[in-house]
């Protein structure tokens, strides 16, 4: 590695798990923000949270607690679950004070 | 290369004397090395310090085992002549703090064909500092006895190290010892 360059872009190969040591930025640096958006965890899910909009009181507890975070906050504090990233942990369902989120078997 | 070993007690400025000599030598464009004998510093305990002087760069970094000159800053250490003269080179020099060197020292020096220089540093220290500070008087005595550096170089080193009134009193002590030191 001679002459390390200032690079502000992760090489495309890194997202596909095939970047060599020569291609990677120095010292494991991730030189651009929000690369985790490219890492979709939605297919980890065994159980799927399903929202019952009628029950929801818009308290946003699920939005606060979702570790991913896969719960999006919309107009008027309505929420939407982004299934590209939701990994099905069920925390939203447990925390919801009015049981507005139910976990159902994926694919069922 | 000239190797010097200084003997004194913790708190007497043994290390400073060796340090000042090295600084004086360096200021004359020669090479010098000064190092204390390392260990916990305890007031009153016997302390040794070393100086090396050469016209060439000094490469060696071991202790000094066969000094050319031994300087005994503390007079009570002369009770143990064996220890202070250990390893002294044949024909070397001994500079002691004493109004008149004891017979035992003269005998031991004779066996080693060593010259003995003496100065009453106690008297000088009491006159100048009103305290038993022997290190700079003994530096003055060594400089005269050995001719290793010019008196002015030593005085300059003292002024750089201390400054102000303290420096001037040390200068006086060095000058007096320089004048009063005698060959036994």
């Amino acid at each position, binding site marked *: 590695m*001679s*002459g390390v360059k200032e690079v502000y872009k992760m090489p495309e190969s890194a997202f596909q798990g095939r970047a060599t040591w020569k291609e990677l930025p*120095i010292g*494991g640096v991730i030189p651009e923000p929000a690369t985790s958006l490219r890492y979709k965890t939605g297919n980890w899910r065994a159980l799927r949270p399903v929202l019952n909009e009628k029950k929801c009181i818009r308290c946003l507890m699920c939005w606060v607690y979702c570790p991913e975070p896969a719960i999006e906050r919309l107009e008027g504090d309505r929420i939407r679950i982004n299934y590209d990233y939701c990994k099905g942990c069920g925390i939203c369902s447990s925390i919801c004070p009015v049981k507005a989120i139910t976990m159902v078997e994926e694919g069922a | 290369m000239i190797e010097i070993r200084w003997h004194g007690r913790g708190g007497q400025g043994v290390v400073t004397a060796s340090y000042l000599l090295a600084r004086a030598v360096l200021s004359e464009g020669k090479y010098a090395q000064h190092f204390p004998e*390392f260990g916990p510093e305890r007031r009153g305990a016997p302390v040794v310090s070393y100086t090396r002087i050469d016209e060439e760069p000094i490469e*060696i970094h071991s*202790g000094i*085992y066969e000094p050319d000159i031994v300087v005994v800053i503390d007079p009570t250490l002369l009770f143990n002549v064996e220890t202070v003269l250990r390893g002294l080179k044949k024909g070397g020099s001994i500079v002691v703090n004493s109004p008149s060197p004891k017979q035992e020292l003269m005998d031991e020096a004779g066996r080693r064909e060593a010259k003995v220089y003496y100065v009453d540093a106690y008297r000088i220290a009491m006159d100048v500092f009103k305290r038993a500070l022997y290190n700079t008087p003994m530096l003055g005595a060594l400089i005269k006895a050995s001719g290793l550096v010019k008196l002015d170089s030593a005085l300059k080193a003292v002024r750089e190290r201390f400054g102000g009134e303290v420096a001037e009193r040390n200068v006086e002590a060095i000058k007096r010892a320089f004048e009063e030191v005698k060959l036994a």
Partner: protein
Amino acid sequence: MSGNKVLGLSGNEAVAYAIKQANVDVIAAYPITPQTIIVERLSEYVNNGELNAAFIPVESEHSAISTCVGASLTGARVFTATSSQGLALMHEILHIAASLRAPIVMAIANRALSAPINIHCDHSDIMNARDTGWIIMFAENVQEAYDLVLQAFKIAESHEVLLPVAVNLDGFILSHSLEGVNVLDDDEVSKFLPKRQPIYPVDFEKPVTYGPLALPDYFFEIKRQQAEAMEGAKPVIERVGIEYGKLSNREYKPIKAFGMEDAEVAVVALGSSVGTLRAVARRFRKKGRKIGVLGLTLFRPFPREELIKYLEGVKVLIILDRAISYGSSGGPLYLEIAGVLYRSGLRPIVLNVIYGLGGRDLRPSDVEAIYEEGFKCAERGRAERELLWVGVRE
């Protein structure tokens, strides 16, 4: 060319003086004998305005080096210093500093590791850290301690390197010895060491992530890259040594060789002992005895090719170690060189001397005895004992 100003400085003072001239931005250090004077002097320089740096007092060496890693990653020029247990306490972060490619310069006043507790010199502290990914250099005298610290910044911060550098000076033997030091003028140092240019300076418009998780799919690649960085440092270290030579009249090479043109017996060592070995070798040379001395300024990356160049024709090679690698077949330097020799195909008789632990002095008379043993082996064509303990009461 330098103004040839000679100052009487101890090793510690010389390091602090170099750091002041290097204009560091951040110092985080914890005092420990025999390094203490470095930290004291630096805090004085910062306090009286001679050095405009952030001096961060910390509660341990672990925090000191952690602070340095963070500061270095923001793009600052960073310095710390330690010894012995302090270096051991830094250990896990030493790896992180190197892996994150954080240029940091650290002075180590080498001191034995406990137990028994001891404050004097040996190399057990740095040898314990030899595989942390730091560039490791050894000073032979106070002048070299000053010179190497300045070169260390240039090496560490080079975009071809970006690794931390440890400059070792033997505890007490160098840290507390006063010698004449030729110092450069401040503006010469500023020209040699202009402000650091970080690859990723802190920039809110361009955020980057340091220290992410790397699982089996990427960890290995990043380590491979780090190993290569160490190799890539070699030409930079050589270049910096030459450039520094032009500036100061003191050129630096990874290995200092004395008498190696025709040496039958060669001795190799690190640190202040090199001077003592050379002083005794000069006396042997005057009597026509073909002894050579190799002093390694650079230990990591190990100057393999350079070493081999000198060893052609050497009958007996004596390797001096001021540390033990418990349960192995020799000291750390011996193990290193044995590997290099094996690959090179050269097969001199090799003696390993373990000496000087916990501040035990290497006397000129010890050195003479070591050389005599070497010549005896050369004559016999074999070694009676390959491991010699020198200076210990048997």
